[in-house]
């Protein structure tokens, strides 16, 4: 993995994390917004400007790929590189959680 990707995405924003997580299955922007709202009990509502910008940037960085278009909605799915980045971030969060537990 190149250093640029690592620098930009580890650690990543909560938005980026949920987008990558949701794109394990093919989905479109609004589908992700709804899925995240369900997952977080309505606590996190992703906004469209953030969503569009993130998807475009992640596609450019090869973390996700465009699959097809349905009713003017672009459907994306995570790539191998995206999965690798997500795993790396997950490890970081696990370590964070572990250390917090030990510290408390």
């Amino acid at each position, binding site marked *: 993995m190149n250093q640029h990707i690592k620098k930009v995405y580890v650690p990543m*924003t*909560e*938005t*980026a994390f949920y987008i990558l997580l949701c794109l394990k299955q093919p989905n479109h*922007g*609004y589908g992700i*917004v709804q899925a995240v709202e369900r997952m977080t009990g309505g606590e*996190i*509502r*992703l*906004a*469209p*400007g*953030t*969503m*569009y*910008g*993130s998807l*475009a*940037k992640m596609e450019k960085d090869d973390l996700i790929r465009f699959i097809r*278009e349905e*009713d*003017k*909605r*672009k459907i994306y799915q995570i790539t191998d590189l995206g999965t690798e980045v997500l795993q790396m971030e997950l490890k970081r969060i696990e370590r964070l959680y572990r250390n917090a537990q030990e510290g408390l």
Partner: protein
Amino acid sequence: METKRTFRIFTIFQYKEEQDYLREMHLSGWKFVKVSGPCIYYFEKCVPEDVIYQLDYNKDGIAHKEEYVKVFSDCGWEYLQDYAGYSYFRKSASETEGAEEIFCDDDSRQQMMMRVCKGRLVPVVLTLPIMWIPYFILFIYCLRTGAEWARCFLILSTGLICLYALLLIMLACQYRKLKKREL
């Protein structure tokens, strides 16, 4: 229907001010219709309502208009128009929970600022050195010949360059203000 036109200048880093202006107008019974030409804002009379206006600056979005607008309309934002690279959206405050925006984290707000810089500020800054080239030629010509017309032209261009520099200083201040508020 009663309509109204206003002339307002918002510079590239004043999109927050512009959003607030459109919201205030709607709140006082003037619904935004469009902005066109040299900063002319068109409104029509309406029932006063609290409507949130938001501006995005995304060239990629404008290039893929249908998909771009769809993401916003799915989330309940009405797409209005593009103007000078900015896309205009609005949503009634009664539909939103709290002060909803089209960005939900600082990262994406900062990225929007960077897109504005790249798209609008860089060309403006690059124009300055280009302006110096004819200025110097004129300056040397004026020194050598002392021609009256060249002197007049020189004074005029000096004024223009000063104005331009002032504009850049103003933009730098607005950028700092925006950055402070955003981050």
